[in-house]
């Protein structure tokens, strides 16, 4: 039976005491998997180190393998030694954390019955009180069966249950809807937390702070002052061991559909009325709906794709995509995408948003550049103003997170000579603390039930609506698939895409 609303805790007041979540049991499906080992368990351990876990907290690992609690804990410990961001491991804290870690094999219905008993016991003995978070750290194909079993064995009834899932959320609109319907068998939208780890990054949250905690940017954040916006998500890595997955997905689905469109939404959205899950996501959805759809027949003029060939990254020769493991020799998969997008609303009418992302680009960098219009009238002589460029505000997400503003300044000589200078705010130099890992931020939020930094189903669907026609056009063989040498900024077709408008890509 659901408890009465909890009494407020009068001790939890003031700026110093961090908000810790309510007592909770966390069930990790895929507990023996890679995500649990690399991200989830290290994040939980580091939260424990910071005393951010509640006084009553338990972890239950669930997977098909048959393991004892002890074996499970030992394997987690071995992974933690490898993947924790803080080292060495504080064994006292780990032992205390591990005492509340259990393992249940969920290979059949009996396993789910065991899980139900385990959780019911924890509710009483450990004080988790019916508060439980199911983390599906499994391949998406397992989401459906797990949800069916949770429902069948009454694991989400009469308790406060939530679920965390990882991308991909489907591979197109209809599969995303299908997945949602599956989840809805046991969870309502408010109980579903979709992780886009980009949103857990400090600087991504800082976009909202920069825009909405400062009064000076918002008045010029529109078509009147902004010439265009460039968003770059560049990776120098290739696809590593993910050949099989990448062949199915490609960059369009892997990056554009989620990270890139989410960045676009944060930069372009209207001010929310509050920093809470509903207000922020309502505004993101609104702007995503205003993104002008690119019809199949327009794909060639608005979108460029590419695939990396062999080349050099940081002086080291690397192989071509088609030579990677698990990739077909004649693969048509995109590893680079550039998009020329428009947002059809009052604020942005006619302002192009150039988005590009790719693997095996010269360096790993993510940035958003707001390129302002040039000064309306040229006061200084042509010679003097030669070195002048329009103002740009650049939000760097990684690495060297920070903000820089480019403006013209007089060179200290007799007479007037103008040069562009950068005023840099290096996030790390003003607050040189280790930013928390995105997973720590997001898991803590999910435990607290705060969904602000998670993607909502209607956003996911809207993002697919934008991406689907592009994928379809490519599947029908429209548009070339130029090969770009690894270590370059993508195919020349991408340069032409932006050059047609009389503009050029930045060199981030």
């Amino acid at each position, binding site marked *: 039976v659901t408890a009465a609303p909890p009494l407020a*805790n009068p*001790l939890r007041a003031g700026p110093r*005491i961090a908000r810790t979540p309510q007592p909770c049991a966390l069930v990790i499906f895929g507990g023996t998997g890679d995500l649990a080992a690399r991200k989830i368990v290290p994040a939980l351990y580091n939260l424990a180190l910071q005393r951010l876990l509640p*006084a009553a907290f338990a972890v239950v690992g669930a997977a098909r393998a048959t393991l004892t609690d002890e074996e499970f804990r030992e394997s987690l410990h071995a992974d933690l030694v490898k993947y924790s961001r803080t080292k060495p491991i504080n064994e006292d*804290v780990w032992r205390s954390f591990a005492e509340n870690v259990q393992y249940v094999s969920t290979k059949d219905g009996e396993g789910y019955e065991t899980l139900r008993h385990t959780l019911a016991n924890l509710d009483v003995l*450990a004080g988790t*009180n019916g508060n439980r978070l199911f983390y599906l750290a499994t391949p998406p194909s397992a989401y459906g069966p797990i949800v069916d079993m949770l429902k069948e064995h009454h694991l989400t009834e009469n308790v406060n249950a939530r679920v965390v899932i990882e991308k991909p959320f489907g591979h197109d609109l209809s599969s995303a809807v299908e997945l949602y319907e599956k989840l809805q068998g046991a969870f309502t939208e408010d109980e579903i937390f979709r992780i886009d780890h980009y949103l857990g990054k400090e600087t991504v949250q800082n976009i909202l702070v920069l825009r909405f905690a400062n009064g000076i940017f918002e008045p010029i954040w529109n078509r009147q002052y902004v010439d265009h916006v460039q968003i770059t998500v560049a990776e120098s890595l290739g696809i590593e061991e993910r050949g099989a997955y990448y062949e199915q997905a490609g960059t369009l689905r892997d990056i554009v559909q989620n990270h890139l469109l989410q960045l676009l939404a944060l930069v372009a959205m209207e001010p929310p009325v509050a920093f809470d899950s509903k207000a922020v996501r309502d505004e993101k959805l609104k702007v995503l709906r205003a993104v002008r759809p690119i019809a199949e027949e327009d794909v060639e003029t608005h979108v460029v794709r590419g695939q990396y060939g062999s080349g050099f990254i940081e002086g080291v020769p690397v192989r071509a995509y088609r030579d990677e493991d698990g990739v077909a020799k004649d693969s048509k998969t995109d590893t680079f995408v550039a998009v020329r997008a428009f947002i059809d609303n009052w604020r942005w009418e006619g302002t192009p948003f150039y988005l590009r992302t790719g693997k095996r680009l010269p360096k790993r960098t993510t940035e958003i550049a707001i390129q302002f219009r040039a000064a309306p009238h040229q006061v200084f002589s042509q010679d003097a103003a030669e070195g002048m460029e329009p103002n740009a505000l650049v939000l760097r997400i990684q690495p060297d997170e920070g903000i820089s503003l480019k403006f013209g300044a007089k060179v200290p000589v007799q007479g007037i000579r103008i040069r562009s200078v950068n005023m840099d705010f*290096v996030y790390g*130099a003003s*607050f040189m603390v280790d930013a928390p890992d995105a997973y720590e931020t997001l898991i803590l939020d999910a435990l607290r039930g705060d969904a602000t930094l998670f993607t909502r189903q209607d956003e996911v669907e809207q993002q697919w609506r934008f991406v689907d026609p592009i994928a379809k056009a490519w599947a029908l063989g429209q548009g070339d698939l130029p090969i770009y040498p690894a270590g370059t900024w993508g195919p020349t077709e991408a340069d032409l895409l932006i050059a047609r408008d009389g503009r050029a890509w930045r060199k981030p």
Partner: protein
Amino acid sequence: MSVMTEIDERVWGTRADGVSALERELARLRRSLGAHAKEHGVPVARASVLNLVVFATREIHARRAAATIDELATRHPSRAIVVVTDRERDGAPPELEMHCHLPIPGGAQQVSYEQILIRARGDADQRLVSAVIPLLLPDLPVFLWWTETPPLDAPYFDELLALADRLIVDSADFARPDRTLARLHAVARAGHGRYGLTDFNWTRITPWRELTSQFFDVPAWRPFLDNIAGIRVGFAVDADGREIHPSQALLFIGWLASRLGWIATGRLAPSEAGGLLFAMRRPDGQDVLVRVRPRFMRGLEEGDLSGLRIQAERLGQHAEFVVKRAEDSSHATTLVAIGGRGIAERNVPLGKPGVSDLLGEELTIARSDAIYEEALAALVALT
């Protein structure tokens, strides 16, 4: 004559005569750093987020403070102004000597921060503020860190305080913390929120407050919070039990009392071996018995909390909430026992924050901490 100790220029940088000479010297240093950085392809950002004014009467304190700020410079780039006055001032002519340099904290070349020393000789107290004001960076908050008991009656303290947005003290260094805290509280109230007051001893008990709060996040345990019958707090003393510093323990009690609406029914009464025993009254009229006890524990600074035990009775059920510092002193065990049955035992890191950790934490909070001021008020009511 006072002992005119030479200023070590390796520590404090070049001497400059007057504020404008000092600004010129800083500009020169910045340029040479910039040139150096250009050669190595690292841009120098002059990031500043605050002014930090440190006051000391001994050079050893000043040096310690400077080392602390060095450690923090990458997290809190600042202009630090260290003011050192003479303790022995028999007839020496009053004089201010200034030095400045740009330390490169931890080799982090992308940050530049500036450190200025103002060395006062003789009775130069009334001149201090006039040297500090022109050196403050405009538009940034001013933190005033007083490294010893503040001279609450001295005009120069008032003058420096008038510049500050926050006053940072450490009641662990106060000779009579109960008296000085009470007077500081009065000063803070007289300031009408113009500046915030903070105490490293308050920062030191944050983890204890956090762990205590976490107990009562558990819905099943929350009702006990309104039914606390007794509380025991232990604090560390040295082996022979002479150094008695109960400020952290008292601040903790003051915090609970102010959050839970307990009122003082009497004054602090001494009990055995330097401890205190007294009662407070809950809003429902029931008494809470408070016992504060000194305890020798290896590896702890005098005054640090060693453990606490909260006892509550509700509907005939007895509950205990315990936080106990572990032998290694950097962890704590927390334990809940309901009806005599122990549940939810865990081991959490407590850390042993050094002065730089404490100062770093304080510098992130730019406004006054109402919770602290309320805790202090509750504590003052007991003295």
